[in-house]
């Protein structure tokens, strides 16, 4: 049973990905990530001295500022800031530079569905561009559930609004990594199968959610291959340009 999507993609097909790094001169690291028409620009400044109030000074801290394309900053932006901050804090090695703050500014350039995953991918690429030490990469994807129970990946804004439910999922991605001491290594389940972040909206059955997890996981392999290829160290230093 095939599902017809407006742009002619199959259920598992992602939109064309594009990523450029080092696009801003003043920022310590910057990247833009676009999935189809959704485009997000991320900039990283840091590490700077000191942590904010109520933060632990024995660890480094990540601060996220989310700038929407239009309109005032409201609850949605605050929620996205909190989610991106916690996701990035889980991938950064926080004990290397204690009592410092790394600021990540996320600017939405265009929103055509799957905005939060696009922002997390952009922020991760910007952190790499800035040279912040990371445990592993984070790859984010959006899975939508249609009424028929079919899972489609990387929806556009219209698809997101029409569908019964959707889930934003972030998976870790590593070639080699140091496992934290004492963490559970489940027999038969490699680390890529765990989720860092999950935000869902709409009602779905538990089996549908687990199905979304499987599909999302499978798609992140493609995304992470793309990310690694784009972020290979560039040979000539004047290859960067704005936009």
């Amino acid at each position, binding site marked *: 049973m095939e599902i017809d999507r407006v742009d002619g993609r199959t259920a598992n097909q992602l939109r064309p990905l594009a990523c450029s790094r080092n696009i801003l001169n003043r920022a310590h690291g910057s990247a833009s990530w676009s999935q189809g028409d959704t485009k997000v620009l991320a900039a990283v400044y840091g590490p700077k001295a000191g942590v904010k109030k109520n933060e632990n000074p024995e660890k480094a801290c990540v601060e996220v500022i989310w700038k929407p394309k239009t309109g005032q900053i409201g609850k949605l932006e605050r929620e996205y800031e909190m989610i991106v901050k*916690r996701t990035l804090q889980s991938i950064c090695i926080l004990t290397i530079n204690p009592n410092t703050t790394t600021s990540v500014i996320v600017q939405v350039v265009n929103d055509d569905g799957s905005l939060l995953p696009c922002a997390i991918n952009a922020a991760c690429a910007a952190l790499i561009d800035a040279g912040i030490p990371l445990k592993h990469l984070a790859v984010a994807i959006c899975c939508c559930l249609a009424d028929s129970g079919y899972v489609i990946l990387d929806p556009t804004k219209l698809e997101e609004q029409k569908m019964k439910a959707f889930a934003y999922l972030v998976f870790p991605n590593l070639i080699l990594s140091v496992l*934290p001491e004492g963490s559970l290594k489940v027999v038969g*389940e490699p680390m890529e199968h*765990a989720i860092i*972040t999950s935000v*869902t909206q709409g*009602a779905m*059955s*538990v089996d549908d959610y687990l199905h979304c*997890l499987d599909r999302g996981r499978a798609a992140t392999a493609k995304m992470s291959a793309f990310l690694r290829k784009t972020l290979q160290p560039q040979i000539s230093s004047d290859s960067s340009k704005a936009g």
Partner: protein
Amino acid sequence: MGLPDASGDLSSEMEVDAFRRLFPLRFYERHLAESIRPDGRPLGRARDTTIALGAVTSADGSALAKIGSTTMLAAVKMEVMTPSMESPDEGCIAIDFHMPPICSPIVRPGRPAEAAPVVSKQLSDTISSSGMINLKELSLVSGKAAWMAYLDIYCLDADGALFDAALLSAVAALFHLQIPAVSLNDDGKIVVSEEDGGKLEKEPVNKEKRKLTLRSIPFSLTCILHKNYILADPTSEEEAIMETLVTVVLDSSSQLISLYKPGGAVLAYTSAVQDCIALTRQRVRELQKILDEANSGMEVD
């Protein structure tokens, strides 16, 4: 972090309270190794929960919910408004979550809590995703008048699991809500009806106070993931030490309304996700019972 031996040597000489403040993670891990928590609960059990309906008499619906020490007061006020063009037979619900300075020492008047807008948005998303309320029920006169329900939730004491308690109090307040009786007067305006029956020139739009029919009610449980332990219903001390939280919202027909895991150092494998969902299923049954008891307690009066 410190030297692994330091706490071991001092623990035999130090008082429990001092050890708890100086080495909080080790204090907790000592307890978790015995499958118990400092307050005596087993790992999968939530704190004692109570609901009191009708806590605010001036509101159309209200509830006070307590999970352990976390206290939330929710109240619903109804107002008549003109519905929007796109949905002329639907009313509207506006949900807002406030954390006044009374709830926690880290919240001060000039320094609002970071959690407040996040929980507020989570609540609106959860209540609209669950489809608990049919907005068409809030309509009065199609295209001209509909109810606007303002649901405000105030945190009176923040001791962990804020979203769980807030959702519980919101759901209980909507459960307790009685829509006032109104009638249409000569000017075409909706006015609140008199208690002693409507006059003839006014046609009653809403004959008597009625309750909303709630379809599946959502209940939630927040769990902490730490190494290979899953702790249900954390206190604020546990949340501060072990930062990885997973909130699962299920409704009474076991549909997953939301699985919210905002990052965190511990990754959730599928087995952990399924364990959290199983704990939440159990919790949904407990909360359903508590809500029914609170409701029948009110009806006796």
